[in-house]
């Protein structure tokens, strides 16, 4: 600060009660401006930096051609590190070299340039307006108001995009059958199977404190739509001590012996609710921390979800395998506008989504 030369005497810092702009501050010369040896040194440094870049490029190419990358952790990691570092030198050399050149050798004495207002001058504006008037006259629309012409033009242009957009948007929606969201693969008699291998589950397999991740039997054999069905049909099978389980009214026979099944799809925005805390009987969804109480109808005890997880009615079949009694009694997963419309009873047949 004290190196700034005062360009005005202190009494001229303000004039007539107004502050006066002191002007651009004094320009301090750099070492390389005044000392030719320093300038030469700077030049050599810049050249050296560019040289580092050249070495980096060569190193990158050498690594690329000599390193034989095999598909194991150490090899991939080694090639990655070597290429990354050499590429870094190749780039940084040029970058720092150019910047160093600009900082030490290039002009650093500031210049001043006047700005012009953005506004076009009044003369030019008048000419422009006149051109527009001339053009309007030439269009033949100024003799009378020609509202019919204007109106039809605007209408035509406004709706023409529809001819392109409607087929574009319409075709992207597939068969537009949003009713599919209502039903899943589960139906009366569908056996519960382990996710992901599809082996069947016997009631005796499910001991107290267990959680099984479940898919419907037959899901893995689907030729089409496997992930779409899985995205609706995944289920959690849990066994609690029956004394801890508060059966919900109307759903007393949907579970047995403390073995109970809920949809795994969060009723918030659809992540898999997968964390089961054995001691608290809480299910935690890792995405937004909605917490469901398995012992009390999977109702929400914390977090952004509002609705409890839909329960899958299950029973045991003659051979001891756990089966569904029907589809879910409500659409699974996140809420949508008309989820409560269109009936809540499960689809009677198993035709949808099966191979």
């Amino acid at each position: 600060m004290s190196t700034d030369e005062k360009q005005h005497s202190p009494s001229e810092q303000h004039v007539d009660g107004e502050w006066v702009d002191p002007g651009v501050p004094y320009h301090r010369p750099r070492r390389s401006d005044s000392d030719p040896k320093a300038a030469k040194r700077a030049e050599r440094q810049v050249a050296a930096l560019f040289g580092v870049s050249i070495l980096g490029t060569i190193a990158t190419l050498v690594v690329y051609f000599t390193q034989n990358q095999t598909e194991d952790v150490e090899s991939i990691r080694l090639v990655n590190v070597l290429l990354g570092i050499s590429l870094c030198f190749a780039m940084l050399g040029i970058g720092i070299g150019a910047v160093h050149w600009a900082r030490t050798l290039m002009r650093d004495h500031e210049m001043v340039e006047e700005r012009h207002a953005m506004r076009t001058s009044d003369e030019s504006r008048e000419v422009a307006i006149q051109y527009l008037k001339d053009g309007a006259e030439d269009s033949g629309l100024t003799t009378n108001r020609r509202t019919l012409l204007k109106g039809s033009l605007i209408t035509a242009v406004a709706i023409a995009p529809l001819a392109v957009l409607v087929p574009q948007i319409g075709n992207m929606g597939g068969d537009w059958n949003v009713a599919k969201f209502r039903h899943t693969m589960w139906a009366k008699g569908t056996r519960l199977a382990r996710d992901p291998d599809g082996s069947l589950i016997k009631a005796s397999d499910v001991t107290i404190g267990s959680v099984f991740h479940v898919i419907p039997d037959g899901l893995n054999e689907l030729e089409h739509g496997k992930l779409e069905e899985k995205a609706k049909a995944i289920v959690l099978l849990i066994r609690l001590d029956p004394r801890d389980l508060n059966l919900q009214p109307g759903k007393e026979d949907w579970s047995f012996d403390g073995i109970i099944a809920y949809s795994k799809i969060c009723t918030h925005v659809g992540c898999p609710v997968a964390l089961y805390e054995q001691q608290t009987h809480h299910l935690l969804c890792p995405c937004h921390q909605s917490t469901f109480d398995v012992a009390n109808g999977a109702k929400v005890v914390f977090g952004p979800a509002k609705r409890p997880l839909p329960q899958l009615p299950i029973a045991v079949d003659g051979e001891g395998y756990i089966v569904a009694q029907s589809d879910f009694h409500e659409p699974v997963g996140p809420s949508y506008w008309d989820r409560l419309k269109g009936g809540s009873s499960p689809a009677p047949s198993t035709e949808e989504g099966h191979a």
Partner: protein
Amino acid sequence: MGAKVNTAVAGTSNWVDERTTIGGFVKFFARKLFPDHWSFMLGEIALYSFLVLVITGIFLTAFFVPSMDIVHYEGEFATMHGVEMSKAFESTLVTSFQVPGGMLVRQMHHWSALLFTAAIVTHMARVFFTGAFRKPREINWLVGFTLMILSLAAGFTGYSLPDDVLSGNGLRIIDGVVKSIPLIGTYISYWLFGGEFPGEVLIPRMFTAHILLVPGLILGLIAVHLFLVFLHKHTQYPGGGRKDTNVVGLPLFPVYMAKAGGFFFVVFGVIALIAGLFTINPVWNYGPYDPSPVSAGTQPDWYILFIDGGLRLMPGWIGSFPMEWVIGGYTLPLNILIPAVILPGLFFTFLAVYPWLEALATGDRGERHVLDRPRNVPVRTGIGVGLISFYVVLVIEGSNDIVALLFHLSLNDITLLNRVLIFALPILSFLITRRICYGLQRKDRELVLHGHETGRIVRHEHGEYIEVHEPLSEQEVWLRVQHGDIAPLEIEPEFNHRGVRRKGYRFDRFRRRLSRFYYEQRIQPVTPEEYEAAKHAHH
């Protein structure tokens, strides 16, 4: 040799100029002045990381297969060998594991994306806090705002391309959010995915968006953005010689070509180094997308975290009051619409229209090319800090399980605390920031009136001890007084001379209230009279 080069250059230039008038172009651009300050390079960081994204992206498109067809991985990597996956996932593994340099380029691409979005936000904050959005740059603010939104789209579509469990669950969440939209939500979902989630067309569609539609828009808008910067000339910080009617700086050719051009290579080099050393997005650990698995620590990339945080923060029940309503049998999930649709919409709309809001309060009609020092605009600075703290609370809430794990806290407690902070912190930080700005302005006044404290104590003959103050140089004084005083708007009276209420009065009254909010409480810069009075008092 030099002479030969000269004639070669002259000849080529002539040939081109005779066909393109390029001489005028060179005249306009070559010696354009740019003020020199590091904070003006933040936008460049965004630009250069975008260039790195394009360069590395082209490499990746040579190997990525945007298809959801099912294959089994035939490579040797132990945890992936024989695993069933989509071709998109498989090609990502091939790029990372089998293509030499593929892992590096893929990691450079992803680190670059994080940097791109971070630089945009930082640059936007700099523009906001220095008032660079004022006339004539409102349009450029909108262009930049749109670029920011597009960067989110580019990032989101990009990291969803490998079709892994982490990004797939992110897509599932988007599907859930989309479904929550009243009336048309299920149709939008069905349209996006070409059917039920996950469908078979999503990856190819996102690929097109990611490499063609979004980058095309970004490139076009970058061109507009840079053109406007050249047209308006860059803004400059206040200082001696800097006025709204000039620009003080160094020329584009050669200084900024070297500095800015060199800086591109610096950014490239840093990204290469980081990508060589640090793992990012290890999709082989998440596995190919399946709707069933999910891992602890399921978060989107940082720039989408604010939405995830909003979704975590919003309670599904407030006491026994549900946040999902059923009206006439139709379901309205406010617990999703508020944090994921309504609040971000309001937040971004406020950001977008801010230049006009502030112009309403100022009544300022002139072009502004000298920047504000943030302390001299306390309400704007306070609003900016308030907005940032709102955003940060959401980002921290989006990371709440990570915070809970690392710091041994309860994630439930973190969420409950953030539910309070989301309201309290923006207001508190606004008030505190505004206070701090006033304090800084008062400090500036003190400095101008009394000078720097030197730490030298002098004893007068009559026994008084004083500290010697060194008066400020005229540059330092100018910096602290140049901003002038802005008084709140005065408006015409409510009733005209005939006693009839004016038509625009309501709006004017709103303007005055807004203006008072901004400018009523203010610290005026030292006037020359005060300065002289202080000088005399010292002698």
